[in-house]
């Protein structure tokens, strides 16, 4: 009745396996990020960042793409933030659990798991064609707004809910109305969490290409009006890489994207850190 492998040996072996899995994961990241950044570095200079593309991206820079990315992301956030914050406040402060709330939650969940190409299809059928916005910053931005919405909603809801109930009870007991309490007590306390949600939503919008493939056009010029077509960074990278236009500029564009994502990760982590320290009363 003796086991072949003693618990002690199993413990040692498994610990080794766990370490290896952890290290493999880190290595994967380091290899991908390291490769992209190292290959992109030689291209990254002021001329590349602030220059116009020449010969459809074979030469020159990516300034119009950076502006395009910023433009569509801004529109996405301007639309998604109020909608998702309103929804988060309603869900955490007003709604009582029931069929309706379950439906809203399922809606948000579905929204966050729908493939981005489906958003692209919808954007094409609805914004571009049905509402006749054409291939434009507006169509692309609105499509991205739909994608960022559930991200911001989920993070905001959690952070609003985590604000100690006694906070709001204290305020209500002082005779403040519900909205006054939310506005003056709950929201300020939940602000760091909400900000984190917005930044995460921003990350999702900046990184997206499939959803804007058929909504934003692919123009190389800097978009001025919201009805101008544009070419955000991920889309530019996709076109450069798949059409074999310029490997160098593709590396440069990829490096810029990765750096943006790293910055976003660092910022959200710092925010969350500081936030949780504050909550712990330090």
């Amino acid at each position, binding site marked *: *009745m*003796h*086991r072949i492998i*003693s*618990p*002690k040996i199993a413990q040692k072996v498994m610990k080794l396996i766990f370490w290896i899995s952890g290290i493999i994961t880190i290595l994967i990241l380091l290899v991908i990020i390291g490769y992209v950044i190292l290959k992109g570095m030689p291209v990254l200079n002021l001329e590349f960042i602030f220059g116009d593309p020449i010969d459809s991206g074979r030469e020159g820079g990516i300034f119009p793409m950076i502006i395009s990315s910023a433009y569509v992301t801004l529109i996405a956030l301007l639309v998604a933030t109020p909608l998702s914050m309103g929804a988060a406040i309603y869900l955490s402060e007003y709604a009582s659990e029931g069929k309706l709330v379950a439906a809203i939650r399922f809606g948000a969940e579905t929204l966050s798991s729908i493939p981005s190409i489906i958003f692209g299809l919808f954007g094409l059928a609805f914004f571009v064609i049905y509402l006749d916005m054409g291939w434009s910053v507006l169509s692309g931005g609105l499509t991205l707004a739909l994608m960022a919405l559930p991200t911001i909603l989920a993070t905001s809801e959690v952070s609003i809910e985590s604000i100690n109930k006694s906070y709001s009870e204290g305020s209500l007991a002082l005779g403040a109305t519900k909205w006054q309490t939310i506005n003056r007590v709950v929201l300020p306390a939940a602000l760091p969490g909400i900000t984190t949600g917005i930044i995460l939503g921003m990350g999702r919008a900046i990184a997206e290409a499939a959803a804007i493939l058929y909504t934003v056009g692919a123009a190389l010029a800097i978009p001025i009006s919201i009805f101008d077509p544009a070419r955000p960074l991920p889309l530019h990278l996709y076109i450069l890489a798949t059409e074999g236009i310029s490997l160098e500029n593709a590396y440069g564009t990829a490096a810029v994207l990765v750096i943006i994502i790293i910055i976003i990760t660092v910022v959200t982590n710092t925010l969350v850190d500081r936030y949780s320290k504050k909550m712990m009363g330090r």
Partner: protein
Amino acid sequence: MEYRIEVKDLNVYFDELHILKNVSLKIHKNMVTALIGPSGCGKSTFIRTLNRMNDLIDTFKMDGDVLLDGKDIYDPKVDVVELRKRVGMVFQKPNPFPKSIFDNVAYGLKVHGITDNEVITEKVEESLKSAALWDEVKNILDKSAMGLSGGQQQRLCIARTIAVEPEVILMDEPCSALDPISTTKIEDLIHKLKKDYTIIIVTHNMQQATRVSKHTAFFLHGEIIENGPTDKIFIEPCDKRTEDYITGRFG
């Protein structure tokens, strides 16, 4: 040897926090020792040092000696797993695994390499009987332990602990989450178990300490202020602070 556990000049730190200060205590064999003291004075930390559960906390540091049957349990050569098998523990909140009643008791046996189903079945029955739970659960052994009442869950945890035949049982406020009837049952159980086991029980309840223990140690701010026979501590304490505590003047 007369003493099962000897603690000498034990200091425990969590990071920079000095939690236990120069604690020395001798625990008699086959006897119940009660640890009392106000909340936060370090009772749990103390008993968790005795089976090295504190090792699970990153910030834990200690110095001093903890001897079990004369051997230092913090010796690098000591097998912690073996130690915990010898020094069992019952927690404040009943914490059965989300498994069946049978599997809860069988868990420790399986973990220690017993695979013979007959042996396991026998042992489970025996342990549940010793824990005075058998009659209540013998027909529902395959039901989830989570469906039991709090008191039953706590007796199940005791059964689970004695199934692996420890020499010492540490109990950290085992009755604080229970109603009076369940508490009485657990106390009866302790009386029954003390013949075979060395028991250390943390309690906030003075009556309980007098009812179940032969020996008592009073903790305050991480130090042992006074320890000795329970009768003496409760009837004529030497230290003013002990007297204040047991008469309910603070804490």
